[in-house]
C-alpha cells in the first residue's frame, strides 16, 4: 500500500503511487455506490467531524454521505456561524474539538494554509476540503478519476483549465495532480485572473480561448465568483462570457471526443453555456459529483487505515506525519 500519510492536506505532497492508490480504491466504491445496499464498515466506530468555516453545500454533503456510507458517526459543524464569531481562534477551536476525540476532521477554511495550521494541533487525521486559494485535493482526485474513466487513461492528455485560475484552489490542485501524471496543461483566462509566476509552472498560458482549446482532450471550466465579475477583475459578465465562456462554437475547436468538466456550482451563461453543461455526450459534470463521493470514501478509508496502523504503536499523535 503506497499511501501512508497521516493527513490529506494537498496534492503537492502526494506521489504518483499515492494518487493511483486512492483512485483504484475509489473505483471499488463507485461500484458499491451503484448497488442497492451502499453500506461498508471501513469507518465503523470512528467519528468524523466536518468543519466548514466557509459556506458549502455540495462538498459538505459529499463528505457527509461518504462518511455515513462507510459507517462513521458524522457530525457537521457550521463554523462560520459559531465560535469564530465569538472571537475564538482557530487553534482554540482545534484544541476544543481535539478533546472530543474525533478520528477524521474534514476542514474547509477561507485562508490558505489554515487547514495545515489546524492539522498541526490535533491528534486525528485531517482532510483538506479547500483552504483559501491553496488546495482542494479531493476535488482534483475526483476530477482525475472522472477523466480516467472517460478517457481510459490519466496521462499524455491535453487538458485545458479555463477561467479564474488566480483565485482557484481547484485549479492549483488540478495543475499539480495532472502535472504529476504527465499531462499537457493549458491555462486559459484573462490576465487579471492568472496567478503570478505562472510561466514557471510548466504549463502553457493562453489569452485567447479559441487558440487554447485547439485539439484538447479535456476542457475544465472554473467557477467565476460573483464578486469578481463587475469591473474588479473583468469588465462585465457578458464580456467575460463572450471571450472566455464555453459555448458550442469554441468547444468545436477541441477534439471531437473532448469532455467538459466543471467543479460546480455553475454560472450558466457566465462561464458555460447551459446546453453544453447538459449535453450528455460531452459533459461529465454529473459524473464528477458521483466520483466525488467515491473518492472521499477512498481517501477517508485510507486515512483510517493509517490511523489504526499507527494507533497500535501507542502513538500520541505527534510523532508521525
Amino acid at each position, binding site marked *: 500500500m503506497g499511501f501512508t500519510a497521516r493527513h490529506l492536506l494537498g496534492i503537492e505532497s502526494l506521489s504518483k503511487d499515492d494518487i493511483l492508490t486512492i483512485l483504484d480504491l475509489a473505483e471499488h466504491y463507485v461500484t458499491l455506490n451503484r448497488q442497492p445496499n451502499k453500506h461498508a464498515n471501513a469507518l465503523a466506530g470512528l467519528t468524523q467531524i466536518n468543519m466548514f468555516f466557509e459556506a458549502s453545500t455540495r462538498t459538505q454533503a459529499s463528505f457527509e454521505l461518504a462518511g455515513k456510507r462507510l459507517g462513521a458517526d458524522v457530525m457537521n459543524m457550521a463554523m462560520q456561524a459559531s465560535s469564530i464569531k465569538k472571537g475564538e481562534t482557530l487553534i482554540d477551536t482545534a484544541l476544543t474539538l481535539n478533546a472530543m476525540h474525533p478520528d477524521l476532521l474534514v476542514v474547509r477554511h477561507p*485562508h490558505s494554509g489554515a487547514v*495545515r495550521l489546524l492539522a498541526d494541533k490535533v491528534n486525528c487525521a485531517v482532510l483538506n476540503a479547500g483552504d483559501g486559494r*491553496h488546495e482542494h485535493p479531493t476535488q482534483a482526485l475526483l476530477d482525475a478519476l472522472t477523466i480516467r474513466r472517460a478517457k481510459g487513461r490519466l496521462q499524455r492528455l491535453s487538458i485545458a483549465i479555463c477561467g479564474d485560475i488566480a483565485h482557484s484552489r481547484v485549479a492549483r490542485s488540478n495543475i499539480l495532480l495532472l502535472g504529476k501524471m504527465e499531462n499537457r496543461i493549458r491555462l486559459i483566462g484573462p490576465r487579471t485572473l492568472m496567478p503570478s*509566476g*505562472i510561466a514557471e509552472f510548466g504549463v502553457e498560458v493562453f489569452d485567447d480561448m479559441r487558440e487554447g482549446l485547439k485539439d484538447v482532450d479535456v476542457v475544465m471550466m472554473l467557477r467565476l465568483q460573483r464578486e469578481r465579475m463587475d469591473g474588479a477583475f473583468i469588465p462585465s459578465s457578458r464580456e467575460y462570457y463572450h471571450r472566455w465562456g464555453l459555448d458550442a462554437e469554441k468547444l468545436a475547436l477541441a477534439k471531437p471526443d473532448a469532455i467538459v468538466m466543471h467543479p460546480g456550482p455553475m454560472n450558466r451563461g457566465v462561464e458555460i453555456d447551459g446546453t453544453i453543461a447538459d449535453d450528455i455526450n460531452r459533459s461529465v459534470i454529473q459524473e464528477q459529483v458521483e466520483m466525488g463521493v467515491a473518492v472521499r470514501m477512498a481517501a477517508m478509508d485510507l486515512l483510517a487505515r493509517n490511523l489504526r496502523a499507527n494507533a497500535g504503536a501507542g502513538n500520541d499523535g505527534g510523532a508521525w506525519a
Partner: protein
Amino acid sequence: MSDTLFTNARLIDPEQGQEIRGALLVTDGAIAAILPEGDKLPEAAQTIDCGGKVLAPGIIDIGVKIGEPGERHKESFRSAGRAAAAGGVTTMITRADTIPPIDTPETLAFVLERARDQALVRIHPLAALTKGRQGREMTEIGFLLDAGAVGFSDGDAVVTDNKVLARCLSYAGALGALVIGHVQDPGLSDGAAVTNGKFASLRGLPAVSPLAERMGLERDLALVEMTGARYHADQITTAAALGPLERARAAGLDVTAGVSIHHLTLNEFDVGDYRTFFKVKPPLRSEDDRAAVVQAVGDGLIDIICSMHTPQDEESKRLPFEEAASGAVALETLLPAALRLVHAGALDMPALFRALSFNPARRLGLPGGRLGVGAPADLVLFDPDKPFVLDRFRLRSKSRNTPFDGHRMQGRVLGTWVGGKRVFAWGKDDAA
C-alpha cells in the same frame, strides 16, 4: 570616573574603513585614545583583555518598535533595553507606531521618561509625521524636534495624499528634520502577505509585485526633489528600486536608504509551509532581489542596516498566514545575522559597521557610531566566529517571534558598553 583600557582587540573603525589591532582607552565615558599594537599602554584603573576579539562601535538601530505606550505585553523599554544590550545595540531609534501614536510632545515626553528610567541603552525616538498616522494633518514637527525627536515617520502607514506629504516634507525640510518614508505603494500592497511569483501562487497567498517598492520610492523621490527635504527610505529590498535610488543620489538629493537584516539574509522561500514568523513588511523577496540588495549595501548605495525589530505575541502569529501579524524581533539577532554577510564575503567588518553604526549616527546627527577620540564609549565586543544554535525561548525580548529559531548562527556578543558603562556581559546570566 575611572579609566578603562581595552587591550588586545581587533578595533573596527568604520569612519576610516579600517581594522587595526591594538588597545582603546576610555575616560569619563568617552574614547580617549586609540593605541595601535606596539604603542606603550597607559595606566588605567581597569583593564579588559579582549582576547583578540572584535571591538566595534555599538549598533545604532533605526526603527525599533517598543510596545510602550499601548502594547507593553509585547515589549517594554526594560525588555527591549536588555535585548538591545545583549545584541550589541547601544542606541535604539524607536518607532512612533505605538498605541496611541507618538504624535504630540506630551506622548514623546512620556516615552523619553520611560526610556530614561527603564532602558539599559540610549534611546532616541522618532515621532509621527502626521497626526494619528492618518496622513491628513502634519504633527507639531517643531515642538517634537525640540522635545527630542530625531526623525519623523508614520511607519508603514503611507501618506497617500501627495499634497499632504509635499507640505510635510516642505515644512520638515525647512526645520532640517529628517523624514523617513515606507516606500511600498499602499494600493498594490494592500492585503498582500508575500511577494508575487511562483511560490506565492503555489501557496495561494495574496501577493504584491516587487515593483510596488519602486513606485513608492519614485513617488517620494519626486516629492523630495520638489521640496528639498532630508529623506530616508526605511527599507529598500528589491533590485528594481536601486536604479531610482542611485539616480536620486547622483542628482544630489538628500536621500539615504536602509534595509532590514531579514531582507539581507532570508528570501521568500523561507516562508515554507506558512511559517508566520517569516511574515514581515515588506514581504521577503526573491533570491535575486536579496543578492542585489546585499550588493547595494556593499557598494554603499544602501546606507543603513537595521533590525526593524517588531515584537508580536504568540496569539498574533498563531493564525492563518494571511491573518497573522507582520514583523519579527531582531535586536539580539541583528549582529549574528549580519555577520553571515561577512562570513559569506559580501562585506568586510568596517563596511558592516559603517552600515550598522557609523551611517545611522551621521544621518541622525548623533555623536556615536565611530571609534574616534572624543566619541562616546558606546562599544560592542564580540567573537565573530563563535557558533551557536538560536533558541528563541532564550531571547530577552518579551516577544519571541524570530525567524532564526533553530538556525545555526556565528557571532557571539561578549560585552556591551554605553558611555563607558558595561550594560551586558556574556555569561553573567546565560547558560551556554
